């Protein structure tokens, strides 16, 4: 354990986290640009999310008079929990000290912590929208979580470790092996990621229509810097799922040792992978329509089914083979 808890390692981990947090709005900018192009609209600038954030940070905060102190603390908790999640995930390099702090189950726990406060904040002001958003968000999350953990279990049982760095190491050492269990787990995780980050067809991040909104309903009462933190956390969450999928299922290119060339290569690799993933997401979001809320359980059951199939094929086909 102590062999990579070095000062250099901690510094690198800190830098990687900072890069993760600052790059998240860029990813959203890229996604919006792609979507606009696909829909024949003229696209906003790539840096538009940064401008939005900085504007929100400077604006006055308006708080409802029915709000409790929890309302003002929640954005900080949500944002901190999401940043800590980002710190744990290997972005450029594996075996950074932060990766040992938490394994992939704890990571799911961090996201749950953020969601818990998000949902509480939605109910704090006492409007009808907030409660509706919280109820829907928690329902969707509680159905998504088993599917996600099942997919992760498939992975950890293959790699014999629930530590992401060790799992990536294992996969790199294996080389390119086509595993049916991984295909199913990837499918499951993609479906879960769409649901958890509130993208179409589960939720629409650009809607403010009362009947359909989920995430937006919870943050409806926020403004100024509080809103900026909430938005930033949502952007980070999208990037977290992107990096998880990219680096676990396609780990090639990630830096195994911390030399400058390896790190640069890692940066190039993850940029390429995320850009490609965004293309997939943008195409899917353009091609699909949002579904009714009560179709979502069916969708998440499909995700769970995929994850279960992945687990079964792992146990039947791969163990001992």
């Amino acid at each position, binding site marked *: 354990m102590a062999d990579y808890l070095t000062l250099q390692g901690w510094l690198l981990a800190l830098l990687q986290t900072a890069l993760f947090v600052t790059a998240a709005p860029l990813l959203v900018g890229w996604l919006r640009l792609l979507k606009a192009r696909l829909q024949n609209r003229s696209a906003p600038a790539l840096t538009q999310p940064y401008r939005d954030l900085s504007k929100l940070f400077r604006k006055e905060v308006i708080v409802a008079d029915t709000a409790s102190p929890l309302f003002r603390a929640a954005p900080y908790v949500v944002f901190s929990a999401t940043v800590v999640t980002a710190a744990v995930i290997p972005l450029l390099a594996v075996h950074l000290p*932060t990766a040992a702090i938490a394994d992939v189950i704890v990571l799911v726990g961090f996201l749950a912590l953020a969601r818990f406060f998000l949902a509480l904040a939605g109910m704090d002001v006492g409007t009808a929208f907030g409660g509706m958003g919280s109820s829907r968000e928690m329902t969707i999350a509680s159905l998504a979580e088993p599917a996600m953990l099942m997919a992760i279990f498939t992975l950890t049982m293959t790699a014999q470790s629930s530590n992401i760095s060790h799992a990536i190491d294992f996969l790199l050492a294996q080389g390119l092996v086509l595993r049916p269990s991984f295909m199913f787990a990837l499918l499951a995780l993609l479906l879960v990621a769409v649901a958890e980050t509130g993208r179409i067809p589960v939720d629409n991040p650009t809607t403010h229509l009362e009947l359909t909104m989920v995430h937006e309903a919870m943050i409806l009462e926020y403004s100024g810097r509080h809103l900026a933190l909430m938005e930033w956390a949502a952007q980070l969450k999208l990037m977290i799922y992107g990096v998880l999928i990219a680096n676990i299922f396609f780990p090639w290119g990630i830096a195994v040792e911390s030399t400058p060339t390896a790190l640069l290569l890692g940066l190039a690799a993850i940029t390429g992978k995320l850009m490609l993933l965004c293309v997939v997401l943008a195409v899917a979001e353009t091609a699909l329509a949002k579904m009714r809320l009560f179709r979502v359980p069916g969708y998440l059951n499909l995700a769970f089914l995929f994850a279960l199939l992945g687990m079964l094929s792992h146990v039947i086909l791969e163990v001992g083979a």
Partner: protein
Amino acid sequence: MLSLLSGLVGLGASRYRSLLRLVCFPLLGLSGLAAATGGLLVLTGDAVAAQLPLGLPWLPWSVRVDALSGFILLLIGVVVFAVAVFGPGYTREFLHGRHSLSALGVFTGLFVAGMQLVVIADDAFMFMVAWELMSLSSYFLVAFQHENAANRRAAFLYLLMAHVGGLAILLGYGVLAAFGGGFTFEAMRAAELPALWAGVAFALAFFGFGMKAGLVPLHAWLPEAHPVAPSHISALMSGVMLKVAIYGFVRVTFDLIGTLQVDWGVIVLLVGSVSALLGVLYAMQQTDIKRLLAYSSIENVGVIFMALGLAMIFLASGQPLLGSLGLIAALYHALNHAVFKSLLFLGAGAVIQQTHQHSLEHMGGLLKRLPYTGTFFLIGCLSIASLPPFNGFASEWLTLQTALQGVVLESGVLRIVIPVTAAMLALTAALGAMLFVRLYGIAFLGQPRTRQARQAHLPSFGMRAAQGLLAVLCLLLGVLPALAIDVMGAIPQSLGGLPEPGITGEGWLWLTPVSPAVASYSAPLVLLGLGLTWGLFYLLLHGRKEQPLRRVHPWDCGFGPLSPRMQYTATAFAQPVRRIFQPVWQLDEKVERLSDDKSSQLTGLRHQLLVTDRSWGLLYEPIGRWVLRAARRLALLQSGNIRTYLSYSFFTLLFLLWLIT
């Protein structure tokens, strides 16, 4: 150590006469402290044994405190102490009522003494006596507010089921004693049971202790009995008494029976996961705050039994290291549940005392009116929703890690069953998070829904202090799990010499079940990371100058002011779950359209929803009908004629004489 134990019993005895709550609760607190220190001493030191000059002449009561009983004693002590601090303020409202405070004091003392004696008993005889003491005295506590017919019914149901369970435990001990040739645990431990009889003993113990612990489908008494007792008693029942049942199960299965079988483990695992899932789903539909917490106890007991089942599977398949990992996970969750559930019940007690409302739909906005209770309750909610870095997460994480090690097993079926149950655990945890968002969001956030909720005042200092103590414990057990688990390391050793799992092999910062390469979790560093990010951004945003903040009315879409009735209700919040998991409940939903007589225009809607536990219709009512029918048949014997009765005696006598010749 010995004097401490006898002192404990003495304290228990002296409490009965003390009628004043001023004497009662401090004595209770002392007893709690003594139990906690005693437990801790044994955990870090050696086991203590003695024989009490009590009991029957040829059957002296023997006591023995080893690491396992020390641990449970510690758990009892902590909660009893907190309850003793909470009690004086809480029982103030009973002072001028027509309830007998002395009954409350006497039976609380007996109840606590009974639980402590169960844990230190070293023979089946004393165990059963203490067990009955615990069950009977808690019956009187459940029936405390007996003017309400529903409370009497709940208490009777509790008494009935406690005795059916007690009978099963007694029979289980009977099987063990028959092969061991004595009632002492030592004789039972040495006995070599044939597989069939071991199975019978296990089944009886699982049934009996499972009934007391509230496993589905034997849980029916729990959501009835726990909510109707006074809140500090509910805290004791949910927080501690269920753990005593778990102690009994662990003692009999892991220690006395000793040689485990894989099938038993699978049964325990499956029953545990079904209990966990159904517990949380039923809790989701409750609007009474204490019933909701009682159902959530069923969920947590299910989680504990899942970990125990995993431990049994691993032990039976020759993986003692993983077996003790599961055992530690189960016991750690038991400790954590004791702490946060009693915190939540005490919080619920404070809320009910201040608002005189039991239903979530009549609360709201309480965080602003009860800031201390609200904050501590939030910590309890975060812990029970198993969120890092609080204590519930640490133990659920260990359980999941145990489950992930299912790959080492040889049976392909088990390798699939275990991850599927782990996914059920994940679903349970996620639904649990939703449940406590619902509880906290409806009761403590938003606007007050009734006048009583608007006029809630701060509870007394003792009540706040007790909750604060438990909340701090939640955080400590969550942030420093390695230290706590280090202390628990002696427990597997005391149960037939199982190895100590190397969970804390990397020092106090890390939890590393199996090995650091497989999984690691560092709660202190997580807390540090959260704190640093929070601090950094708070400074960045507030550092330069005072930031503007304006308070206004919330946006009302231009239709005039928002009223509290426009908020989401607890029933509405759970509606999506109700719709998705529909077959789980017996739903009776009626929507009535109210219309004007003249214009037949719709003037209003009346919505009625009744959610019933399916186990009543499927299990309890058929059994009840059957028992009644059997009783009616038997009643034919009783003619009321003295000559008939005399002839019964005569023939019985003849029969007995024939038997002995």
